[in-house]
């Protein structure tokens, strides 16, 4: 193996890692926003996200025969998933977390695990009534073609990209575009609106925010709504990118996305995005370590293959937290003593 193939190979690995990272990033945002206001690891977020994926699946399935424009279908799917996941998240907050606002922190954590278990079965039952378990996205055919592939107006660009190792499908480009758009919207919402200010105030200090006339219950509910809507988006993106989901498939990406949120500094929105991207790329790089090892002729690296992808994320987290205990972009909360 020579070095001229190595370059495009690595570029390809990193590109696909970035696409994956964007999906993680949007899921991680759902965790980090809820964490920001309640300091709660919302274990149920993985199911909120699966709910979005399921809703997206249903929309694409129902609209499959329709001659509607694919992007319109996507828009409908995204909106429906956002609404469904957002509402679900609000309901969960109202029923399961709000009554426990003043309980010790572990109590809502266990409740969240309970809610997560309930939702897994509920999703499976609902889809099971229609005889389905694994749900495979029926995307408009155009989404499955290559980005700037043959016979498209930008074929030259596509060829150039392929040469450097980037070969993307339309749906992957959509994943990135939708992610960026959601990030921009979220950024605007949090940093430039009154609601965003209220959310930040509640995240900082719920009691004081209450004294300033902010209805913290309402703000928390709205935060869950936004977090859930992001979960819905990420569900649809996940379904598009990987094709198949089932009631239980939220768990693994959920854990990795939460790791991403912590890696970036939990509670920090740019941190969650950075963490997601870093983990996406690192997971893919760990997956190809054995190839790099054989190219560079390092025997020990050759034992590290795709089976270490999952724990690689955690080991990176350990390393980063040892050197930067608040995560990459976490505020260092110097405690007043």
């Amino acid at each position: 193996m020579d070095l001229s193939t190595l370059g495009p190979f690595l570029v390809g690995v990193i590109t696909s890692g970035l696409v994956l990272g964007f999906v993680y990033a949007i899921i991680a945002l759902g965790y980090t926003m809820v964490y920001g206001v309640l300091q709660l690891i919302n274990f149920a977020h993985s199911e909120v996200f699966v709910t979005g994926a399921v809703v997206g699946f249903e929309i694409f399935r129902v609209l499959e025969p329709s001659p509607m424009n694919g992007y319109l279908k996507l828009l409908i799917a995204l909106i429906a998933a956002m609404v469904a996941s957002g509402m679900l998240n609000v309901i969960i907050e109202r029923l399961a977390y709000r009554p426990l606002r003043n309980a010790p922190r572990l109590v809502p954590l266990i409740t969240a695990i309970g809610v997560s278990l309930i939702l897994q079965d509920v999703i499976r039952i609902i889809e099971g009534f229609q005889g389905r378990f694994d749900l495979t996205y029926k995307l408009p055919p155009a989404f499955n073609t290559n980005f700037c592939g043959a016979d498209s107006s930008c074929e030259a660009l596509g060829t150039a990209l392929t040469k450097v190792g980037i070969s993307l499908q339309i749906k992957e480009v959509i994943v990135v575009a939708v992610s960026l758009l959601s990030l921009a919207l979220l950024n605007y919402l949090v940093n430039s609106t009154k609601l965003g200010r209220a959310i930040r105030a509640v995240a900082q200090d719920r009691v004081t925010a209450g004294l300033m006339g902010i209805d913290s219950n309402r703000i928390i509910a709205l935060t869950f709504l936004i977090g859930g809507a992001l979960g819905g988006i990420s569900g649809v993106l996940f379904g598009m990118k990987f094709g198949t989901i089932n009631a239980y498939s939220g768990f693994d990406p959920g854990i990795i996305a939460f790791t991403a949120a912590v890696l970036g500094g939990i509670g920090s929105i740019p941190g969650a995005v950075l963490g997601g991207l870093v983990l996406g790329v690192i997971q893919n790089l760990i997956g190809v370590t054995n190839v790099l090892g054989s190219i560079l002729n390092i025997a020990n690296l050759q034992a590290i293959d795709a089976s270490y992808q999952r724990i690689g994320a955690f080991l990176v987290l350990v390393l980063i937290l040892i050197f930067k205990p608040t995560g990459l972009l976490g505020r260092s909360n110097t405690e007043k003593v």
Partner: protein
Amino acid sequence: MTAIRPGSQPPTAAPDRTWWLIIVGIITSSLLMLTQEPTWRAALPGGIAKFLTNPLVGSLLLTLFLSNLLFAFRWKAAAWAKALVFFGSLFIILPWAGRDNTAIFDLAIQIGIFAALALGLNIVVGLAGLLDLGYIAFFAVGAYTWGIFGSGQFAKILGYFADNGGPVGGGLRYLLGGLLLTILGAVVMSIISKVKGKWNTGQRWANFLAIMGLVAGIIMSLRGVLILMSPQAQSLMSGVNPNFFWLFLVLALFAAASVGVIIGLPVLKLKGDYLAIITLGLGEVIRVLANNLSTYSNGSQGITPIVSPTVPFMNAIAGALGFSPDQYNLFFLYFLVIAIIAVIILANVRLDRSRIGRAWVAIREDEVAAQAMGVPLMQTKLIAFATGASFAGIMGVIFAAKQTFISPESFILTQSTSILSMVVLGGLGSIPGVILGAAIVTILNISLLPSLGEATAALKLPQQINPAQLQRLVFGTILVMMMLFRPEGMLPSARQQRLMHEDDDPSDNETPQDSLKHSAVEPAAEVYSPGTASIKDDQRTGGAR
């Protein structure tokens, strides 16, 4: 918060329930035996027998019977009655029923194993306040410690080294070199640790290199030992002598504790949820390593068969009591688990009520203040981590012996959260609470919920709402409901109880002493208490300082 509850004074208002206890004990025991003892069941009319052998009914009666232990523990009754019901249930009725139905033994042992795990996690989470979501890893360490040596796996490892480790003589070189490195590393470390104050860069590097040398040395010497032993592979084909089990019980304790320290050292500086996610990750790391390092752990194929020791006198007792030889092992493990649980409870109580226990709680409440009062944070946290881990390690050995088979599938992430739910459900920091939590969750998961499905198998229900398939739903609902209605847990610790119910109406068990104190501290009701507030602030800051 008008009144203060007494710390440990027993409420005097509760009525004496001695006779109730005896009656309930007799009734539940007889019902249990009616369902299990074939001769008794045969004497019943067919319809009733049928009813009693319904899986759900059987499981409920078993649960009722087990709640005797709880009643004996909780109810106010004469000591003799408590002892009678408690020990009678544990040592007579349960083994008797277990003889007829080994599922009961299996359940009881499993409850014991999880109770020990919950007690261990309780030290880490409940007392020291360190959220550990990867606790099952220590259980895995214990299980693999015995699994590898109590089966042919060790011979396989030796076989591997015989083939790949070079000549046997090389082993000696590895061993000596390794020992030299280890000693060197240890000496350098001890010299550096004598340096007072802040280390300079050189000292830090020296320390780092010494640690690396120590680790490399240990690995090298182990490799040397393995190579030296490799000719013995043949004689170890079915594992070491089963009587080494007792030694390995102790070894597993130390192995798990060491892994606890190794995992704890880099991460215990972190706080709150940072620690939670990192322990979760490291728990996964241990499982994935077990899955990937096939040379040592046989990977996903798992290790089997794992032997158990035979204890002649236990077998003689079991035989005399009419147990069949294939039940001897369960009989032995049942009593072993009870004995170990007793030791663990004792250790737990003693540590809780000591200088260490106070330090743990102090750290949980306020790290800054605890440290300022002279509590060394890292050391105290590491002790908590290692102690919790060691309990899990011991039970891992028992688990391996009971299952005769272990594979990474048994140590998945959800097991850790399940143990955490036992601790929180039972009552953080409360020893009887977490045991009850472990019992409830275990009974639900391996007896009650499955029996729900088994009992309804004959009904023509649509597949999707068949209770057999709804275990997660039902378990999740129970978790959520319990948390909503009893957030402090089933049997909260006195501390937790006082914290959670400061503003409750205290009239239900106010004692004369209460009203005395009452007046003395009346102003407290009005005063904003910064002591507690600062703790909440503290908890909110996720990262380490």
